[in-house]
């Protein structure tokens, strides 16, 4: 079994989505986290969706019609990977503190 890993950008996105359980648009994420850039955020989200860390849904169509925006939310698997990521980080920090 391949253990899922989170890149630095993926971790920022997961953290944002934990804080916003209703979900966020890609552009909102860029505005809220300086680490994220417009030029890469959608690629990162696509990769995360392929890894089942996030899912997206279409917003209901507004009165003016047109293309509905896509809201990204964390999946259950994404939340579990985040907890594992945090636990591993804490364990490493503890180990480093113990070694020093």
């Amino acid at each position: 079994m391949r253990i899922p890993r989170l890149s630095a950008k993926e971790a920022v996105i997961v953290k944002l989505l934990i804080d916003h359980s209703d979900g966020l648009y890609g552009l909102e994420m860029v505005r809220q986290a300086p680490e994220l850039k417009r030029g890469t955020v959608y690629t990162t989200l696509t990769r995360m969706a392929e890894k089942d860390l996030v899912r997206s849904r279409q917003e209901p169509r507004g009165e003016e019609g047109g293309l509905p925006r896509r809201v990204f939310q964390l999946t259950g698997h994404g939340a579990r990977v985040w907890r594992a990521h945090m636990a591993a980080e804490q364990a490493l920090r503890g180990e480093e503190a113990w070694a020093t």
Partner: protein
Amino acid sequence: MGDLTLRALDSQRDRRAGVYVENGSGTFVTIVYIDDEGRRRTLGGFARELAEQPTSPNKITRAPGNWILHAADLLFSPSTVENLFEAAIADLRQEHFDALYQGRLWKARISLLRGYGALVVNALIHGLSGILRLVREAKEVVD
């Protein structure tokens, strides 16, 4: 509807409104405009009728990113189209329309340029990472 249509089209003259052909058959349009009291209004109609109004100063254009969506549909997987192209173009349009509603034409143009730039970079990175993944998988099979 005639008066209202003309008023919507007139409001485009002072660059406060957006007139765009929406998705689908390419003939039905939604006009978004600001009325005299500064309220946001929308109006639907058929492109040919609206474009043939004798007083219309407008050319009716497609919504930003429309052709990119069509091209992406042919070239990329449904998941990539949804999570990358649809998400990016919907955000781009929202920013562009917001600027138009505020009457900030230059901001609207700049947001379009930035949105298109970001979309190109996203698509390039996605394409390159797909190629790298294929190479890695092929290498694993060979090994």
